């Protein structure tokens, strides 16, 4: 069975929803942080899939570019959040 853009978008949507679940159910607590990389990872898969399958010959790398930025942003959020969580739990 041939794999197309919809397959990748489904996986990205699942990851985003799993991350949203983690963030929502612990909205007041720091462990919701684990949801941020999931959400941004899912968004990265979607962006790269759209760049791969559904862009013209111009600007084909824009989706990958923002997938990279999303991954770096997830790392920044988790780095700050874990440190703050460790401090508040003392």
């Amino acid at each position, binding site marked *: 069975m041939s794999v197309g853009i919809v397959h990748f978008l489904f996986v990205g949507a699942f990851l985003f929803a799993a991350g*949203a679940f983690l963030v929502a159910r612990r909205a007041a607590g720091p462990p919701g942080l684990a949801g941020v990389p999931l959400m941004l990872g899912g968004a990265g898969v979607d962006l790269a899939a759209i760049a*791969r399958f559904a862009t013209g010959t111009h600007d084909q790398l824009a989706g990958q570019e923002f997938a990279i930025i999303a991954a770096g942003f997830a790392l920044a959020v988790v780095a700050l959040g*874990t440190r703050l969580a460790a401090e508040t739990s003392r």
Partner: protein
Amino acid sequence: MDTLHSVLFYAFAAVTVAGGLVAALLEARSRVLGLGLVAIGVAGLLGDLDAGFAAIVTLVSLGACAILILQLPQAAAEEPNGFGQQLGAALAGLVFLALAYVAFKGSYFGGGWNAGLFNSAALGRLLFTRDALSVESLGGALLVALVTSRRLVRERRR
């Protein structure tokens, strides 16, 4: 996509979905394992999408996120149960259904891909010229996270 790509997609999608389920449903320490699986799965999917450089960056970033979350003290990693959890699950289910519906019903432009597997030179040109402000913002966010972490560690040691 050809057969090899399809096989790789299903393998990495299975790893990603399993990791997402472990991270979302199991308790604190198991969540790190789930995040590690998600890092491997997402990197594999990006590699399957001819986004080799993004795959490496994502693997490193999400792997680092998993290691950082592993550093959380057990007290901070405990979570309350109850109504909020159920509401969160219902909302996440709705989000998934909405996104899946949009993905399934959408009509997509059929593009022609000719950017290669890595093409890190072209990506670098984009990141450091046209979209330099985004990269600067990301660098600023990482710097703030690093400085704050360092400061908090120092105060803790005193």
